[in-house]
């Protein structure tokens, strides 16, 4: 069974620069695989290790996603191939555009029965794209999956976590599943895998390669602003640990929170 794992490559939220006017800049942010997507990649790789087939990683975005460090990172974690759909039109793509491009790319890749997604992207975390892609493909589409087993050639048994219950569900293939971030612990790449990564195939497609001539925006982004934050005092308590602890207890009492 070949599995596509969709990964969002985006500016690392840790590297955001917030201006004094609340402006948000990603200019100096490093682009990485979303931390919620790594468990999906690991889950896919484990399934192919148990049941055969291979994992093809798929990501769409502007040219900033196409970096050798990121490519190597993905391919050293067990994906056998990487497909990148690169177009500047994807810079601020919302979920409808992203899902359309992903679904079109998935249809172009042969012999795929399962597509996995993370819980949400690290930058937007709308938790929508996986579900939308499944629906656009006309496949069974489910979210919040925390365990996947293959029980027949064209059937999975999965566990799904809702707010108050766990469901055991039989899923006919093909299917698109969004997994929880605790489905499994992502592996650290071994030196052998890191070396092997540079020999694995990377396909680069444009929107034109997918037959997508235009990608009209479904939403207009008017502003991106840091939310107003409570002003914090930022007082560092000096002295010995004992002095600092005593000082802290006294202050907290004075503040009325102890």
């Amino acid at each position, binding site marked *: 069974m070949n599995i596509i794992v969709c990964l969002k490559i985006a500016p690392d939220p840790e590297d955001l620069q917030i201006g004094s006017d609340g402006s948000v800049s990603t200019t100096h942010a490093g682009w990485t695989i979303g931390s919620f997507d790594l468990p999906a990649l690991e889950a896919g790789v484990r399934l192919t290790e148990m049941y055969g087939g291979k994992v093809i990683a798929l990501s769409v975005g502007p040219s900033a996603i196409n970096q050798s460090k990121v490519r190597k990172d993905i391919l050293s974690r067990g994906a056998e191939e990487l497909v990148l759909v690169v177009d500047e039109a994807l810079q601020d793509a919302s979920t409808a555009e992203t899902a359309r491009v992903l679904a079109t790319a998935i249809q172009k890749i042969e012999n795929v029965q399962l597509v996995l997604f993370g819980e949400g992207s690290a930058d937007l975390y709308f938790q929508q794209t996986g579900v939308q892609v499944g629906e656009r493909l006309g496949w069974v589409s489910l979210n919040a999956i925390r365990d996947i087993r293959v029980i027949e050639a064209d059937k999975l*048994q999965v566990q799904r976590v809702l707010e108050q*219950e766990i469901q055991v*569900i039989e899923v006919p293939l093909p299917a698109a599943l969004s997994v929880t971030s605790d489905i499994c612990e992502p592996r650290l790449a071994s030196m052998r895998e890191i070396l092997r990564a540079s020999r694995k195939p990377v396909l680069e497609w444009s929107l034109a390669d997918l037959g997508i001539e235009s990608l009209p925006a479904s939403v207009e982004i008017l502003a991106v602003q840091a939310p107003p934050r409570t002003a914090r005092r930022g007082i560092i308590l000096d002295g010995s640990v004992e002095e600092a602890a005593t000082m802290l207890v006294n202050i907290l009492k004075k503040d009325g929170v102890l």
Partner: protein
Amino acid sequence: MSSQAWIFVVSEDVNLIGELVSAARRLNRDGDLSIAAVVVGDSTAIPLTGTQGVDRIYRIEKPPEGCLVEDLFDTLWELVNQQKPAYVLIGATTSGRLICGRLAARLDVSAITDVRSFDLLDDGLTARHMIFAGGAERLERPLRLPVLMSVARGQFEAEAVQNPKTPEVIDLPFLVPEKRSVLRERMDLPAVSVNLADAKRVVCLGRGIARQEDLVLAENLARELGAEIACTRPLSEGLGWLPRERYIGISGAYIKSDLYIGLGVSGQVQHTVGITDVKVIVAVNRDPDAPIFKQADYGIAADLYQVLPALIEAIRAG
């Protein structure tokens, strides 16, 4: 009335309907739209509380054995096609997110998820939601109809309406989809051990805690303070030292306690988004450059293994 005169509010969780109706009423500022609630379940048993102020209730019958509640999608899709609502508001539960995404795909729109607020301007609606793990808020204008939004619990307050009209109730069959999954089993999740959102004081552990057995040290402090224990995501999801409901951050709990003491918490934005509403933030970290200190009211830049006993001592002495 034009064909797009409806606002639909949809949730498989009837307890959310009241809040969604509240949001819908704000969208209906000019009063020229009608509001319909779409609910699912045994039609005689559905409590219709919270539907005050709606013009119509669509009751989809309860899912047949083996169907997921989200399979109501086929019935909903038929209804949306027929009524062509201008707005669809969906409760942002796990099931709601699935229904929302499927609907967005069919309609070729982007759902605006977890809407925090919206404004009705002369040239249309703008809505605000969180991006970058809470590091930023994005203001967006949907460019296509219908406007599809998901609304998380607690964003809008359900309100009673004076002289509510009696809504028209329309029962709809549950259309079983041709291609679907089969629900084999359901197990109740163990009762959640804590609701951090309600905690007065919280002691939160980060990666600075070296060993699982050291949790007991923090528990001692929590006991002295009458605080709940919480943690950052790696301690819960990576290491499994604490249950998921004890982790604070983007996909975890958001707290609004009087006091938060972070022990060995570095202060990554995915975590700190969950503590912005805390009254007093205290940070203990041996790295004086840890980002948490910039967001704290009081900081002690020292080894938490030394600070913990000193703090317990100071509380007892005080």
